[in-house]
């Protein structure tokens, strides 16, 4: 039996890369958000460097995610695509409705982008689990 491509090891390597870039992005986001206030007292140069590092880490994360998706097999990619499609739809519908609720005074608090991100993350997680179970 000849080996076409060691799918498992490639997948593990891509997952580790994605974890590294996602962690880096989260840490750099925290630095960009809190360091100007608590560490360098709004020094413009340092703040710009912090933001640029955050954007660079974000690009790294996107590229790692792209490679991860490219190297998935066709069924795993289909599961991911369905989960991402549902997440995008839920994010759009929930995000716009959430914004509208504040405009028409159904809620009093200012809509927060983080709430939409949480809803999207939960949707993606559930859709992914359901997708994996569907093909078990």
């Amino acid at each position, binding site marked *: *039996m000849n080996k076409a491509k060691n799918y498992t090891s490639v997948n593990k390597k891509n997952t580790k890369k994605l974890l590294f870039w996602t962690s880096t992005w989260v840490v750099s986001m925290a630095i960009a958000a809190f360091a100007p206030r608590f560490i360098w007292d709004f020094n413009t140069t340092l703040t710009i460097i912090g933001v640029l590092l955050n954007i660079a880490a974000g690009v790294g994360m996107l590229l790692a995610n792209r490679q991860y998706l490219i190297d998935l097999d066709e069924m*795993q990619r289909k599961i991911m695509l369905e989960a991402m499609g549902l997440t995008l739809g839920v994010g759009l519908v929930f995000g716009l409705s959430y914004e509208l609720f504040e405009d028409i005074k159904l809620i009093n608090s200012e809509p927060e982008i983080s709430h939409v991100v949480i809803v999207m993350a939960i949707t993606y997680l559930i859709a992914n689990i359901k997708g994996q179970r569907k093909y*078990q």
Partner: protein
Amino acid sequence: MKNRLKVLRAERDWTQAQLAEALGVSRQTINAIEKGKFDPSLPLAFKAARLFSLSIEDIFQEEPEE
């Protein structure tokens, strides 16, 4: 779509993981194909046919629509 993947694999005494590695896919994908829950693409079907030295029709058969 029906397939004989499980039988062909068993004849060669291969595990799902070994077949998955030979075809460059995950073990879950092999399991889903064997159970008829996922239909492989044409390139993957050709790959499987090449691996077993059979034609695609010898491995995969269309199920009549009800």
